[in-house]
Every structure is written in structure tokens, then in C-alpha cells.
């Protein structure tokens, strides 16, 4: 249980990360990698303030002080009850009274900017690390949070050049003030997966050793485009000579209403036996090894960790020309096709099935390229910029 602690002002500026949650989604995992590196390699005092909890809470707590402000909810309010909302915000804000006034507030994802309402008068530097593109900023972010995000930050970090371009072109942030720091992962994780575990995962979806497993890992929502994933599977598997190809979407929450639609489409298209919906896994690196090919059908994605994890497992990545992933894939670590050309994506899958040597060569390129995203390589680069913003 997250017990409120008595405020006591920190005696030196901290690096305070604001997070929307500490769950197994991309930005919190990124933050965890960064914290591990900071803890091992610097003496900067850190803290994480999160709106919600999540499965990674123990790991965060083992590294730094974690305050989950949204849980437990101190005052349950009906929507639109202004005095009660203000009272609740005051209770949450009181838990941050001990912040050193010159601490750096590091907004990790645009969603986390909501936490700024609890420290409205903070005088220290504010860094916005944006992982979102149009869907995240234009569609999902409430107007009040948009105002906070584009009025306060002193420094901007973008998760990919696509994110930086979007911030500049659509939101007027000067492009030369945005630093691009691509996401980071532990590239060694897939190498620690045993062959038997991989074989077992493949067996669990009915894929034999000679089958091609086309996979992806993501939550199921409109932006991630599971509808296009089903269409891709239907295209590849349509026809008389049905190839030995299985499609696996890992990260499914069976309670999501879209799952019914996914299963319906797979059933009506006659591919229910080849389209596998796998629950959220705490062994994503093992699934990456179980895949032969990683596809990213997302309508947009800033620079997904999952694709980097696939590359670390030596798997080529196929994506749409949408978002930041083409910056990684280029022309040799997989393939980039026009959005929404599912037919072209299907042709790539078919080609890489028929030409395993090409597939392996592309996987090797991906494996080599992902080294630059390894935590020991990427974190010092970020720290070189970040350390200059921390008041001494």
C-alpha cells in the first residue's frame, strides 16, 4: 500500500520524473531503463511521481522514491464537482510540498503533464519528453493538459524525429529547440531466452518449427490498428495454397470490447485457426524470439519499444510509413510500406516467408542497428543533455 509520507523538503534539487503510470507500457519501461542507469552511474537524486500505479511498482520502488498520487483516491468526486475536485487536487498537491523549488520536473509522456496541476508554481526547470504523435496530442490529450504542455516546458525531448517534426509543424515548438533521443532497451534480454521456452510458445499457438510466425505486441486500440492486422492475416492466408503462416497479437486484454470484433472478423474471414490473440506477457523478449517476423500495423507510433525488442531478437520489422519506426527500419532492417497499403505489407510477408535468407539478413541488420538503443549507449547520450539542465 502506498502510504502518504510526511513532507520534508529535499535539501538539494532532484530529478523528478512525472509518469502517467508505472505499468508495462512503453514510456514507463523506458523510464525504468533510464532510472537503472542513473542509479548505477550518477549520484543525481531522483524521484518518480506517477498518477497511477501498475505492475512495475516494485521495480521502481527498488530504485527510487515512488509517489503514486492518484491512488488511493483521497476524495471521490462526481464529474464536474469543482470544489471537491479542487479539494482533491489540494490533498494530492500537499504530498509534493517537499519538492525542492529548483528540482527538474521531467514530464515523461504528454499524458503525465496532468501532474503539473499539483505543482502549479514550481520554479525549477521543466523538461517535456514527448512520446506521442497526432493521436496522442490532438485526439486524446484534454485541452487543459494541452495548454499545460505547450506553455511551461523549458526543454523539449522527442522520442523520434517524427515526434519532433510533429511538435514543430503542428504545435509551433521551434524545431531547433527539440532534442531527439530515441527510445532505449536492454538489447541483451532476448539472448537470455532458452530455446525450449521459444519452442513452447510456438507450440502454444499451434505453430510448428517450419511455420512462419508473424507477430506483434501492443495493447488493442484504434491507434495500434488490430483491424489492419486481421486484414493482413486474411490477405496472406487467402487462396488455395494456404501458406503455413501464423499471426500472433500479444498483449490482449480479453475484457476489451474490440476483442469480440477481432474474433468475429477472424471467424468470418476463415482465419480463426491462424490468428492468435495472446494475453499480456511478462516475457515479451521470449515472444520476440518466437516470432520470425515483427509487423507494426499501427496507424501511428512514435518509436515503439516492442519493435526495438524484436530487432534485438534479430527479427526484421515491417511497418507503415507512419510515425517514427521508418527511421529505424530504413531499407534494410525490414520494410516500410505506404499507409494503408496492407496489400504491400502482405507481399513483404510473403516474400520474407519464401526467402528465409533475406529474412535472416534483414534480422541481422536490425540486430546490429539496435545496439545504438542499448541502455549503456543511449542513456549516457541523454544524460549528457539532461545533466546540464539540473541546477547545482
Amino acid at each position: 500500500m502506498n502510504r502518504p509520507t510526511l513532507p520534508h523538503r529535499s535539501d538539494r534539487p532532484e530529478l523528478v520524473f512525472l509518469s502517467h503510470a508505472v505499468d508495462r507500457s512503453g514510456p514507463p519501461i523506458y523510464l525504468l531503463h533510464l532510472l537503472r542507469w542513473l542509479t548505477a552511474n550518477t549520484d543525481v537524486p531522483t524521484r518518480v511521481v506517477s498518477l497511477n500505479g501498475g505492475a512495475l511498482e516494485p521495480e521502481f520502488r527498488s530504485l527510487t522514491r515512488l509517489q503514486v498520487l492518484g491512488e488511493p483516491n483521497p476524495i471521490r468526486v462526481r464529474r464536474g464537482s469543482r470544489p471537491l475536485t479542487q479539494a482533491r487536487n489540494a490533498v494530492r498537491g500537499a504530498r509534493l510540498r517537499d519538492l525542492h523549488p529548483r528540482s527538474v520536473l521531467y514530464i515523461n509522456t504528454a499524458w503525465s503533464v496532468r501532474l503539473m496541476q499539483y505543482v502549479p508554481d514550481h520554479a525549477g526547470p521543466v523538461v517535456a519528453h514527448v512520446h506521442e504523435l497526432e493521436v496522442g496530442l490532438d485526439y486524446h490529450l484534454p485541452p487543459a493538459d494541452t495548454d499545460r504542455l505547450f506553455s511551461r516546458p523549458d526543454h523539449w525531448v522527442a522520442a523520434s524525429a517524427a515526434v519532433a517534426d510533429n511538435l514543430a509543424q503542428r504545435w509551433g515548438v521551434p524545431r531547433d529547440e527539440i532534442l531527439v533521443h530515441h527510445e532505449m532497451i536492454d538489447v541483451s534480454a532476448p539472448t537470455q531466452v532458452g530455446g525450449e521456452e521459444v519452442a513452447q510458445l510456438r507450440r502454444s499457438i499451434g505453430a510448428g518449427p517450419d511455420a512462419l510466425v508473424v507477430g506483434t505486441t501492443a495493447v488493442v486500440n484504434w491507434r495500434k490498428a488490430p483491424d489492419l492486422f486481421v486484414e493482413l492475416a486474411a490477405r496472406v492466408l487467402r487462396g488455395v495454397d494456404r501458406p503455413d503462416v501464423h499471426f500472433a497479437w500479444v498483449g490482449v486484454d480479453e475484457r476489451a470490447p474490440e476483442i469480440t470484433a477481432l474474433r468475429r472478423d477472424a471467424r468470418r474471414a476463415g482465419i480463426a485457426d491462424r490468428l492468435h490473440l495472446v494475453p499480456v506477457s511478462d516475457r515479451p523478449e521470449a515472444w520476440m524470439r518466437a516470432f520470425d517476423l515483427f509487423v507494426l500495423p499501427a496507424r501511428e507510433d512514435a518509436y515503439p519499444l516492442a519493435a526495438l525488442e524484436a530487432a534485438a531478437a534479430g527479427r526484421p520489422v515491417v511497418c507503415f510509413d507512419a510515425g517514427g519506426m521508418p527511421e529505424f527500419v530504413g531499407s534494410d532492417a525490414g520494410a516500410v510500406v505506404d499507409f494503408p497499403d496492407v496489400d504491400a505489407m502482405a507481399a513483404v510477408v510473403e516474400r520474407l516467408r519464401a526467402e528465409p535468407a533475406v529474412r535472416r539478413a534483414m534480422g541481422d541488420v536490425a540486430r546490429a542497428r539496435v545496439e545504438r538503443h542499448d541502455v549503456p549507449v543511449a542513456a549516457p547520450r541523454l544524460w549528457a543533455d539532461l545533466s546540464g539542465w539540473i541546477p547545482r
Partner: protein
Amino acid sequence: MSADGRPTCLVLLGTLEPSEPLASTLAFLEWCRTAPDAPRVEVLALHPGTAADQVRALAPTTVVYDPQGWSLPRVAQRMGLQKPAAVLRALDLTRRLRVSGPVYVPDPEAGWFLHRLGAHAGPVVVHLHATSSGLQHVDPPDRQALVDRADRWIVGSDAMADVAAEAGADRSQVTELPDLLTLPGIGELDADFLATVRRELHERHGIPVDAALAVGVGNVDWWTVPDAFVRIAWETTRRTTGRDVHFLWVADGATERMLWPLRHDIRHAGLEDRVHIETGSRRPWNLIAAGDVLVSSRLGDHEPIGHREAALMERPVLWFDDPEAPEPLVDADHGTAVPHLDIDAMAAAVAEAVTGERAAPPGQDRFAPGTEAAAWLPAIGGPAIVDLLQRTR
């Protein structure tokens, strides 16, 4: 009996969420409001929904479980008095259901009311629309109440006649009537009117005058509608059809936020000058009629009434095949089904549908009394329902 001497008919509904069966009921209520010989109607619904305002505009309406309501039971419930609230609600229902006039049940979910319906109520007519899911989702006790209390059944299709019979209805008391179509202003449908609609559309969206127009209809709710519409447009556009094809999505009353994902896909697919969006609050039969083909891009449940409307206006209909869905209500002359999720096949079907000579607009005589199309109009179907409601038991 009401003050003006007309009988009062109680219409029982389950939820007031928009649906094809509710659209048919709305057409009936609208006809009752304007036809001099129609009975007065009062609506009693179990649950609210986003179509509540439409229903209220046509007939006095009471919703039993209305969270926004200010009825005595609701006030008691808000005060935390759960048990008194339940007692007050039961008393209120008993009073409202102590009627002597006819009772029309166009929504089987409203079977719940029939347990409490007074013994002196007039004839009870249960209507299973062709576009409904029949009695599939009705609780067994409520289904039994429907069978026990129904004096007559109206069914929209042979399949629904079987549903009623399997539930225990007497076949001799089952009458088949088409679901009612909402085609307000259908009398204006002639070549000049459609030419005007088409010209305005072309001007508003910058569509070349000689381009073909493929129309899709529905609200915007990802994975319900428009589903594959942008994908179909994209596949069609990259084919050489010999004829320029533009696409129009008609989103009934959609807000900009609802349209955002659709606009996002259109923009990112580079189709801004090819796929257009119209918003409107009524069934856009005039836009369907002004188009060359109705593309039903839904992957989920079909909209058979929409299909039927298009077919009645001589517009071909294309849809994804679904053996699990209700009858499409469109004969082979007017519709083509393609395999589920086969975007290529759908794009080919669109291209083929717009290559031929555009069918002439149907004209008013298409709906003249005695024609096949006329049976779908409230002016014909409405009196048929009333006749069944007013027959003595």
C-alpha cells in the same frame, strides 16, 4: 380513450438507443402523429438512450430507469432511500400499466412490462422486426410473458415468423409486414430534385461533375462504422476503372471528435480530395439516391433497412458477406456480397458498379400504392399495424 375521442395506444420499448428496429418504430410514431385516423400513442420505455429526444418529439414518453429524471421514485433513490424508491416505482408502474387501450410491443425487451400489465388492457401486439435479433436476448420469463400476453404478432420476415412460432405463438395470429422505412419527403424524389442534391454535393466537396459517387452511411464508432470505408476507397482509387470515383461518408449527427479518427485515416492515406464527409441528423436517403452505389463497409452487424432503402431507390448495394447476419433484405438484382474482409473484391465491386450506365432515379411512381416498394412506407404499413391493434380479441 383520450380527450379528443381517439383511442390511446401504449407503446412499450426496452431501450431508447438507436437501432434499426427503433428506426422503424419511430417511423410508425411519426405517422401516428400526423395521420388523422391514427390512435394517440404514449411510450413507456425501460431504459434511456441517445434516441430519447427523437421519441419524445413524437409522443409523450416515460422512461422507468432514467438517471436524469425527476420522478418521485428517482428523487427517493437520489436521497439514498432504495427500498421506498423501489416501492414507489412499482406503484407508478402499476398505475401506468392499468390501461384499457391497445398495447403495442415493438421491442421484445419490453416483455418485462407485461408481467405488470393490467388485466383489462386491450389487444397486445408484439412486433418482431426483420432487422431485430428476435427473442434471442430476451430473458426466459419475459419471453414467456410475451407469448402469454400477445394477442397478435407482427413479423418482418419469414425467419421472424419462425422465431415467434418456436417461442409458442399461434401461427394463425402471426402477420407479416415489412419494417417501416423512414423516407421523409420521398414525394420530392424526382430527377430534378436529385440533380440539385448532386450538384450541391459536388460543389460543396469539389467533386468533378462526371465522377461517380460511392456512398457510405452511419454514425462513426470505430469497429462498428465506417470500418473499412477508407480502405475500400484507397483500393478503389489505385485501380484504373476508367471512371473517376469519389467516396462520400454520411455520418448522422456525428461530432468533430467522433469524426477525428476517420479524418486522420483519410489524411494519412492521402485521400483528402477523394473521400468526403457529410453530417446530418436524418436518414440521408436523398444522398443515397444521389450516389451511384451504396457501399456498406460495416464489418459488424449490417444495416438491412439502409440496404433496402438504397435498393428501393434503384441504387446497387455492396456489403461484406456474413452468414450470421439477418437477411439483407436486398435481392440479387440490387445487391452484391463479397467475402468478409476482402477489400480487393469490394474495390472491384465498386469499380464494376460505377462503370455501367447510371440507373435513372426511381421517381415517385416507384412508391405508388400497390407497388412492392410502397409496403415499406409508413403511409401503408402504419394503418396495417393500427388495424391489428384495433381488432377485437
